C-alpha cells in the first residue's frame, strides 16, 4: 500500500486504478507503523471506489479491519450523483453512545453502595441472548411508532422526559424513516429487543469524571470533576441487523444493474436517487429510530435503577442526558465543499459526528461550545468527552473518532485471559463488572483494546475535536 505523509497526523493513500478520490488516514507514526500491513488500509482505498464520493475516503485513528468499510471510516457521497452503501453503516445501524450526568458524586458511594447500583442495573437492563423485559412488550402499532418516532416514542410513554430529546443527535429521530420498509423478518427478529443492551462490545457503565480539560465547555455540558456519569453503548439490536441483511441482498443486484464496479461485495451500493437507495435510506432511518428509542428506554431503566439502589426519588438524582451520538450511520447533511453548499450522504462507520460551535444542529445549550463527542474506551481505563470543531466540519464532513479500536482479535484476547480472573482484577482496581457471559469479559478485557488516549491525542492534535473531560469506570454491565 502506497502511503504519503501529509503532516503530523495525516497520511494520504494516493488515487490509483479506479479509485475516484484519494484516501486520508488520521494516525500517529506509531499507529501507522502498526497499520502498514493491515487490510484496513486497503479497505480505505476500496471505499474510494464508491460513485459520487466527495473529496476523500477518510479514516479516523481508531481505524481497524472491518468488512467492506474499515471501522473508523467516513465517506460522504454527493446527494444527486452519489450512492448509499449499507456496508458504510454496518449491520448494527445507529450503534451509538449516550452519556448521562447525575447530581451524585463519587464520594456518595462506598464499595457496597456501588455494587448495589451495578446489580440493580444488571437486573433492570436485559443483556446477552434473548428478548426484553416482560413489562415492555410491543404491539405491531407500537413498533410502527418506535420506527417512526424514535426516542420520542419512548418519552411519550413516560420512559423519559421531553427535555431528553433536545440532547440527542437529530433529536433522536431521523425524518426519512418509513416503517413500511422494515420487513416482517426484521420486526420478528428485533421487535422484542427494545430496551436491551445486547452483547459483544456493548455496555452500560457507571463512571466518575476524573479530569476536566476545558472548564468552560465542561460547564456547558454540565460536567464537573468527581461527578458520577453513566454511559450506554448499544444499537438497533436484531431489528437493525436484519434491516441491513435484507437490503444488502437487493443492493448486490442493484449495484450490478447500475453498472457499479466494486472491489468488495460488502461495499454493495445503489444511487441515492434509485428506488433501492431510497428504500434502504428509509429502512435504515427506521432502524436508527429503533436504536434511539432503545437507548432512551435504557436511560429510563438507569434512572429507575439508581432510584431503587439509592432509595432516592428520580427527580432528586439529576440524571440528565448530556448527549447521544450515532457512530454507525448514513445521514443527509449539508456542508461547504470548495466554497459551495453541498448536500451529501455522510457514511460514518465507526465514526462520530463532531459539529462545531455555532452550528444549528448543535443543541441550544451547547451552541457556543460545539457538539459533545462521546468516545468510549475500555472497561479498565477511561472514556473521553470531546467537542466538535470548525476544522472537523471543513476537513472530515464534521466527523471524528468513535472509540479505542480493537488491538487483539477475540480469540487472542481469550488466549491471553486464560488462567486469569479478569473480573477480580478489575475489582481490585475498584471496578465492579457484571456480565451475562464470562467469555465476553475476557474478549473485552482492557488489553484487547488500544489505549483510547492515543486515539484522542491524534484527533485533538489534528484539530478535529477538542478534549473536554476524562471519565473513569466504576462499574460495568455487559452482555
Amino acid at each position: 500500500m502506497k502511503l504519503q505523509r501529509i503532516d503530523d497526523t495525516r497520511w494520504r493513500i494516493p488515487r490509483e486504478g479506479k479509485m475516484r478520490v484519494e484516501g486520508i488516514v488520521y494516525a500517529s507514526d506509531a499507529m501507522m507503523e502498526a497499520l502498514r500491513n493491515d487490510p484496513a488500509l486497503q479497505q480505505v482505498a476500496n471505499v474510494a471506489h464508491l460513485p459520487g464520493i466527495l473529496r476523500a475516503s477518510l479514516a479516523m485513528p481508531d481505524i481497524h479491519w472491518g468488512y467492506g468499510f474499515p471501522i473508523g471510516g467516513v465517506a460522504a457521497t454527493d446527494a444527486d450523483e452519489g450512492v448509499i452503501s449499507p456496508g458504510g453503516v454496518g449491520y448494527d445501524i445507529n450503534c451509538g453512545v449516550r452519556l448521562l450526568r447525575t447530581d451524585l458524586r463519587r464520594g456518595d458511594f462506598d464499595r457496597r453502595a456501588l455494587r448495589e447500583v451495578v446489580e440493580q442495573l444488571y437486573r433492570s437492563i436485559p443483556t446477552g441472548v434473548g428478548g426484553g423485559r416482560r413489562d415492555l412488550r410491543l404491539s405491531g402499532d407500537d413498533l410502527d411508532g418506535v420506527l417512526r418516532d424514535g426516542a420520542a416514542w419512548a418519552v411519550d410513554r413516560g420512559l423519559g422526559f421531553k427535555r431528553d430529546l433536545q440532547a440527542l443527535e437529530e433529536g433522536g429521530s431521523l425524518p426519512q424513516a418509513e416503517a413500511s420498509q422494515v420487513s416482517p423478518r426484521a420486526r420478528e427478529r428485533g421487535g422484542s429487543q427494545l430496551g436491551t443492551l445486547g452483547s459483544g462490545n456493548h455496555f452500560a457503565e457507571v463512571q466518575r469524571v476524573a479530569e476536566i480539560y476545558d472548564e468552560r465547555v465542561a460547564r456547558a455540558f454540565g460536567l464537573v470533576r468527581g461527578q458520577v456519569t453513566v454511559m450506554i453503548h448499544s444499537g438497533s439490536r436484531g431489528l437493525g441487523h436484519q434491516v441491513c441483511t435484507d437490503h444488502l441482498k437487493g443492493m448486490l443486484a442493484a449495484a450490478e444493474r447500475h453498472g457499479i464496479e466494486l472491489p468488495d461485495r460488502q461495499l454493495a451500493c445503489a444511487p441515492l436517487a434509485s428506488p433501492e437507495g431510497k428504500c434502504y435510506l428509509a429502512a435504515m432511518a427506521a432502524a436508527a429510530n429503533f436504536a434511539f428509542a432503545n437507548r432512551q428506554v435504557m436511560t429510563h431503566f438507569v434512572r429507575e435503577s439508581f432510584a431503587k439502589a439509592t432509595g432516592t426519588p428520580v427527580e432528586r438524582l439529576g440524571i440528565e442526558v448530556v448527549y447521544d451520538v450515532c457512530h454507525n450511520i448514513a445521514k443527509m447533511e449539508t456542508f461547504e465543499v470548495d466554497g459551495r453548499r453541498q448536500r451529501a450522504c455522510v457514511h460514518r462507520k465507526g465514526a462520530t459526528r463532531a459539529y462545531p460551535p455555532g452550528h444549528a444542529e448543535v443543541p441550544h445549550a451547547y451552541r457556543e461550545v460545539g457538539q459533545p463527542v462521546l468516545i468510549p474506551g475500555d472497561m479498565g481505563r477511561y472514556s473521553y468527552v470531546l467537542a466538535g470543531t470548525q476544522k472537523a466540519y471543513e476537513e472530515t464532513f464534521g466527523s471524528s473518532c468513535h472509540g479505542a479500536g480493537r488491538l487483539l482479535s477475540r480469540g487472542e484476547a481469550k488466549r491471553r485471559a486464560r488462567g486469569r480472573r479478569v473480573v477480580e482484577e478489575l475489582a481490585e482496581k475498584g471496578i465492579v463488572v457484571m456480565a451475562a457471559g464470562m467469555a465476553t469479559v475476557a474478549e473485552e478485557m482492557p488489553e484487547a483494546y488500544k489505549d483510547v488516549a492515543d486515539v484522542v491525542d491524534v484527533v485533538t492534535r489534528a484539530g478535529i475535536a477538542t478534549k473536554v473531560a476524562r471519565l473513569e469506570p466504576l462499574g460495568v454491565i455487559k452482555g
Partner: protein
Amino acid sequence: MSWAVVEHTADVGIEVRAATLEALFVDAAAGFCDVITEVARIGAGEERAFEVEAAGLDLLLVAWLEELLFRFETTGVLYPRGEASVEGSGESWSLRARMRGERFDAASHPLKVQVKAVTYYGLEVACDEHGWRARIIFDI
C-alpha cells in the same frame, strides 16, 4: 471436526472443509453454532426443516447461515446437526435441510459471542482436489 475459527480483529469467521457440498453446508451450520456456544453441548431434541434459495452457491451459504441466525434469534434454537441437499447451477441454487438442535440455555450453553450478521466479506465457496471448502466472516 471440519471447521475452524478464523481470526479477524473485530469479528470472527469460520473455515469449513468437507468431502461433499451437502456436508459443507451441514458443517457450516455446526461451525456457526460453535461460534455462539460450545457445539458439543447442544442437544438434538428439536427438529426443523429448512428451505433456502439464492442466486449463487456462495450466496446460498450466506442465506443458509442467515436463516439459522434468524431462527436462533426468534426461537432460541441452535441447529448444528442434520442432513442437507443442495441443487442448482449458475444463478439459481437451493438447499433443503432437516436439522436437529436444542434451545439455547445460558445455564448449560456458555455464550461465546452473539452473531449480528453473516457478511459477504472474504466469502469463499470452492472445490479442489481435497473436496469442498468455505470461508465466511460473521459480524459480532
